[in-house]
């Protein structure tokens, strides 16, 4: 087990102490670079994706499609999934938050291979529905490794968790406690507190979590109903830009831990710091978490867990999609229709505030993968000649909601049959087959492993 030593300021370096082998082995972790230790290579966050492997995979697939003879479905959009990326990110997690056990939020991407890989890495699971629980249990995962963190649980959900022996779950109101008492009294409960999520892209606390002023009443209800409260949970929302909310939430959690002792309830054992961690800002956000945990939960009595989703999968998947129709508005302006959209693999646009970045992959019989500036959404004055084509990009349905971007600027004038790729599109994208307006939006996923393939 590893623990963290650091001073109480948001300093630029921390010391990780690894107790795995019985003796302390110090690794200095600078804020600006994650160093390599003797056994494993780590990657500075944020780092570049494994472009070579991703491109080769995209290229091979597209070259295998013969436009004249291809079978229906061969030109469908497809993902390239780098399973090695999951491993890299887990290594970074262990470096940054070594004493926080991640419970991967299955809802973020329930792809089976991803789940299996995460399972093999030792990551636990956060499930939000019955089907997610079933999926995880079907991999022979011990129910002990699942938390049922759906903040909107009907009685039937609680009964279901009971039948599957999933004990860990969250609550934020008295009504839910009564349901739990009736249907699943042996639950290991986490009281979910509200946090300041005003800077988050996806705000959750406005709807989920109890205010600190209500905590005492809830704890009294736990006591009266003789339920098994084991911890505190919070979630600062996805895409938070101000990490002081994390610090404040840990501080608020301490208040609940202390309140339990004051009210004569058994001492709490676990703090669930929720999710919302992002690849780009993980280094900064985890630093705040470490400082807060050290300050408010020093020592090793309390166990820590988290519910990361997008951190693990966002950068692991790249989507490729084919231009299936074009409506020219003027010489330099067009509406492009591609064979994927919000009803397929890009429902993250509607439901997760994401703005997928379309980059030109294939045009005029050439691949443009490595031209990372093949498109832009911000046209500067000097860029007009660089990006002469103004486009809006639409999904294959006739639905006005099925819009990928209303305005983008491209270097090339794409035609039907050309391809886009969308990097970092692994979080909250659906891989389900959903026939809509005649389009079977089923997508293949091509798996690569940039760690193993590189050897």
């Amino acid at each position, binding site marked *: 087990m590893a623990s963290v030593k650091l001073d109480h300021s948001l300093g630029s370096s921390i010391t990780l102490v690894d107790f795995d082998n019985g003796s302390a082995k110090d690794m200095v972790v600078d804020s600006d670079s994650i160093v390599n230790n003797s056994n494993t290579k780590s990657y500075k966050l944020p780092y570049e994706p494994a472009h070579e492997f991703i491109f080769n995979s995209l290229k091979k697939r597209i070259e295998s499609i013969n436009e004249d003879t291809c079978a229906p479905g061969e030109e469908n959009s497809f993902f390239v999934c780098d399973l090695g990326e999951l491993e890299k990110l887990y290594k970074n997690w262990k470096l940054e938050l070594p004493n926080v056990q991640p419970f991967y939020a299955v809802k973020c991407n329930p792809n089976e291979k991803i789940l299996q890989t995460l399972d093999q890495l030792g990551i636990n699971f956060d499930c939000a529905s019955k089907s997610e629980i079933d999926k995880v249990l079907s991999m022979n995962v011990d129910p002990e490794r699942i938390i049922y963190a759906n903040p909107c649980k009907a*009685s039937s959900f609680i009964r279901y968790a009971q039948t599957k022996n999933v004990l860990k779950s969250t609550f934020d109101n008295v009504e839910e406690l009564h349901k739990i008492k009736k249907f699943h009294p042996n639950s290991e409960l986490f009281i979910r507190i509200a946090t300041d999520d005003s800077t988050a892209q996806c705000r959750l606390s406005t709807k989920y979590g109890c205010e600190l002023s209500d905590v005492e009443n809830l704890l009294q209800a736990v006591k009266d109903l003789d339920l098994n409260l084991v911890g505190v949970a919070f979630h600062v929302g996805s895409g938070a830009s101000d990490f002081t909310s994390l610090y404040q939430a840990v501080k608020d959690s301490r208040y609940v831990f202390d309140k339990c002792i004051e009210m004569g309830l058994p001492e709490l054992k676990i703090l669930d710091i929720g999710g919302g961690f992002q690849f780009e800002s993980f280094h900064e956000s985890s630093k705040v978490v470490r400082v807060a945990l050290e300050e408010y939960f020093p020592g090793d009595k309390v166990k820590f867990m988290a519910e990361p989703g997008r951190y693990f999968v966002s950068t692991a998947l790249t989507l490729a999609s084919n231009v299936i129709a074009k409506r020219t508005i003027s010489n330099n302006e067009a509406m492009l229709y591609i064979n994927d959209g919000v009803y397929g693999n890009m429902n993250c646009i509607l439901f997760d505030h994401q703005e997928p970045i379309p980059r030109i992959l294939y045009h005029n019989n050439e691949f443009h993968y490595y031209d990372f500036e093949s498109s832009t959404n911000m046209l500067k004055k000097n860029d007009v000649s660089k990006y002469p084509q103004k486009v809006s990009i639409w999904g294959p349905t006739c*639905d006005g909601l099925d819009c990928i971007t209303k305005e983008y600027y491209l270097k090339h004038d794409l035609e039907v049959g050309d391809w886009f790729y969308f990097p970092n599109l692994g979080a909250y994208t659906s891989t389900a087959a959903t026939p809509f307006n005649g389009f079977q939006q089923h997508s293949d996923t091509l798996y690569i492993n940039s760690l193993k393939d590189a050897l």
Partner: protein
Amino acid sequence: MIIIMIIVILPFMFILSIIIISKIGARDTAIQLSSNYSENEMIEFFWDIILLTESKFILPFYSNSRNFKSLQKLIVKNIGNLLNSLIHERKLNSSNLNYHWRKLGTRYTLVYLPLFFKDLIWCKSDSIYFHVILPQVNEIDDSSTTQLEKKKALTQNSKEWLLALLELAESLNLTMLRLYINRTDIDNISTLLRNLNWIGGKLVPNEDRSNIQSNDNDNCNEFNEFMLGDEHFVIIEFEC
């Protein structure tokens, strides 16, 4: 929280009940129908519930009184077919039933959640799905204050009304809840949509209209199934 619910169960069992969602869940209390109304009046009332529920799927372009009358004929005829198939254990012959909302309900439910929605919620269900057509918030005939209040209720209290509907669906032994939200209200339910994955919901695509076939072989009805559609709704689905 009080849900007043009127249920019409085919074939012609009528129940008027009040569901009280209390601290310990749902309690279903059946009450007697008012004796002020004759049986015929009550039957007419329940037919109206069926008709008004089904009429929610008339495409806006066809929504006029003439078509409404024609829809009535079609519904009566289809209910006759449904009852025949139930009684004689025959399979219904229709190619459009892949879209669950096109199936006639075996139970029609009128839900009133006065804390959250000023208007009635029209619902129908078969043995699996609980179809819930949420009232439209963006109606023209309302004062701006009421509009604001309604929008607030829809977005800020979505957990409460969603849980109430999930509990209701579960108490009716249904496994899936489908919410039909008018597209004109899409901005108002953005919070719900953005938390959809989080609370275990998913977006259901609208039907493929190119695959619809008219089942009205005898052409006796001016109204046909092309005039019904779900494209003015965003449909989201939850496990119950």
